[in-house]
């Protein structure tokens, strides 16, 4: 019975992907992409990887879809022409070749069983109960630290796109929310719920599915609603407080990692202090991730031209 459900889900995924890539209009392609992202998140739920399903839905479908929608609007404002999908035999053969070879090798070669046992044995020493959080913030903390720096590097690349004279202007698109309108009502109602859900996700990350990235994304979404509704002043790239928020997470992670040197090893979390150190890092990391993701969506400072 469940294989039937998976069959339908996989068919939905493939159809949504084809529609997203081959779709006629750009807006239609983006909408299908978000739908595709949701079906992939469902596939992760079917595989039993709830943490990844949360991340895929929040970041893969949600934020990426938001960025795509923003880009479609900007392209339309810039008057860039849309043109139909082009067919091509050679690229099709190349793509089919890579995909076919990958699928064939993945199915034919017996798996080496992965790191289930090692992760299981080391979990009690990691200071958290959720194995995924243990891998992210203890066993492979160096990856996660570099990843939070990658977000900052991406933001710097996006800010580099601002024109020289716009550097003092606030980031984000020109706002046209009616004061006291529906969007402002929404911006007053949703943030409290969003903050509770976001903080819960981060706190639960230690023992159940959740974590800094999933929680940070929810908080970023809440911040965006408040900013687009005009409740929160749009930040400027040179504002000290926002830069501190951006740098706080990676900085704390670096300092905690460096403190490990005194305890006998780089990025070492001794078992009895591990939970406290990981939670401290996670709190600041969530703050920075939320700020960086929101600013990534708002984009470089843009001139205040009226719509």
């Amino acid at each position, binding site marked *: 019975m469940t294989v039937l459900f998976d069959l339908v889900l996989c068919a939905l995924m493939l159809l949504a992907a084809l529609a997203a890539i081959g779709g006629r209009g750009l807006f239609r392609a983006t909408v299908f992409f978000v739908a595709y992202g949701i079906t992939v998140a469902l596939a992760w739920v079917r595989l039993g990887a709830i943490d990844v399903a949360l991340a895929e839905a929040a970041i893969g479908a949600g934020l990426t879809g938001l960025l795509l929608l923003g880009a479609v609007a900007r392209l339309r404002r810039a008057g860039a022409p849309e043109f139909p999908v082009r067919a091509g035999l050679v690229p099709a053969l190349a793509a089919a070749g*890579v995909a076919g*070879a*990958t699928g064939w*090798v*993945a199915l*034919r*070669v017996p*798996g*080496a*069983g*992965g*790191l289930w046992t*090692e*992760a299981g044995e*080391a979990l009690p020493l990691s200071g958290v109960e959720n194995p995924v959080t243990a*891998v992210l913030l*203890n*066993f*492979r*903390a*160096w*990856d996660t*630290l*570099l*990843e939070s*720096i*990658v977000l*900052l*590097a*991406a933001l*710097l*690349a996006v*800010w*580099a*796109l*601002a024109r*020289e004279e716009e*550097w003092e202007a606030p980031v984000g698109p020109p706002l046209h929310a009616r004061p006291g309108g529906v969007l402002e009502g929404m911006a007053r109602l949703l943030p409290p719920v969003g903050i509770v859900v976001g903080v819960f996700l981060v706190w639960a990350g230690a023992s159940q599915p959740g974590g800094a990235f999933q929680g940070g994304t929810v908080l970023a979404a809440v911040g965006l609603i408040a900013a687009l509704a005009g409740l929160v002043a749009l930040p400027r*790239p*040179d504002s*000290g407080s926002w*830069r*501190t928020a*951006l*740098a706080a997470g*990676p*900085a704390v992670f*670096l300092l905690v*990692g*460096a403190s*490990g*040197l005194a305890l*006998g*090893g*780089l*990025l*070492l*979390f001794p078992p009895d202090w591990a939970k406290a150190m990981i939670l401290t890092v996670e709190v600041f990391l969530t703050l920075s991730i939320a700020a960086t993701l929101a600013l990534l969506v708002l984009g470089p400072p843009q001139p205040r031209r009226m719509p």
Partner: protein
Amino acid sequence: MTGEVALAVLLLGPLLAALGCLLAGRQGSTVALLALIAGAAAVVVLWDGMLRTGPIEVRLGGWGAPLGIVLRADGLAVGFLAAAVVVMGAVWAVARHDFATPRARDVFWPSSMLLWGALNAIMVSRDLFNLYVGLELLTLTAVAMVALGRGPGAIEAALRYVLYALMGSLVYLLGVVLVYHGHGTLDLDRIAAGRSGADALALGLMTAGLAIKTALFPFHAWLPPAHAGAPSPASALLSALVPKAGFVMLVRLWFEAMPDATPPAALAVMAALGAGAILHGGLMALRQERLKQILAYSTVAQLGYLFVMFPLVGGAGAGTAGAAEAWAGTQIGAFSHALAKAAVFLCAALWIRAIGSDRLADLAGLARAMPLSCFAFGMAAVSLMGLPPSGGFIAKYLVMRASFELGLPGWGLVLAAGGLLAAAYFYRPLAALFAREPPRVQRTPRLLEAVPLALALAAAALGVLSQPAYDLLQAGAPAYARGIGP
């Protein structure tokens, strides 16, 4: 223990400095200077520790492979860490005056520190996925620098760069997924210990992805506009350091992680692509009108040199003395290219600030007004051509001798042809610089001109004093690189 502290300074230092630069704003360059001084000291400590006790290995978080990430500073890594610090220091000296506007300053200094940190992380990492995240950080900082360029094509160059880089990293990641499926681990040494049916496809995918990131011919289309479009000090970083990360990863994958998955035909294909890069880059450089475009295509060609060693080190020649020579020669060539290419791009930076353009016609007779930087350009060009006395010459000599010893003279001739082409495309700028007419030029402080000169002299010194570099490379080099049988 001091080795681990030095490694920590080199890995966490640049990242902390980047955050410092972001918060410091105007004092960004001073924060960067402090990080560079600490980094230089750490490299000296590592170099010394390396020679005495061999490679320094750090098991992050105490976990070790396969669960945790292992870092190892071997000869190759320390060599590139040293080259990176020297190039970063030189770029700092020249760029201090360049990025005056708040936008340029607040993006360049944090990005340059992140680029340096990412490069250090890639050179010492022994974990495939950690290498992926490091490579992605390196790429995004490089794209930020290209986007800083004020020229008309800067945005288009940055966009093409990001598109190529996106697909390159995904194709690499697909290879990593297959390796994890087959071996159950991501650590290079544990992968070398095991065998898996997926190795051939995985190595092919990872190589294709890294070839795009290293701009190996025919995937080089993004490099020339990006390196010509970026601000000159940034171009020095991009050309001298960024492609080397992809190259080092390829070397580790082909010769340390999966030596058995590399048939002689595949090795020959890599060298053939390298030869293609040398010829295509050289010929295209001959047809460019602007100095930075010539230098960018020169990078495409010089990257080709690095891949000629593949059939000599792997395949039939594996484990012989000739293979060790080819390997050591190529790495010394990579170090000297980093120094020399940074020198010529910094010269370009000084000239563009002095006369406002890098067109060959406008450079006429510049040597009379700025003799020091023109001499530095000449010295660096000598190294890039591979003429004595320079690191480039030693590298070419070692690899050519190895190719003759191993009975594959064809690749040696390719290097010779590359040297001739380099001489050809460097002749026109040199002729313009040392032409007769005196140009009108704004005073550039002599001290600034000494910076590229120092780099060019370092590249030349690498030729004369190549023994320390050779010893460094041998200390902690894997078996294939020491002429000991696999």
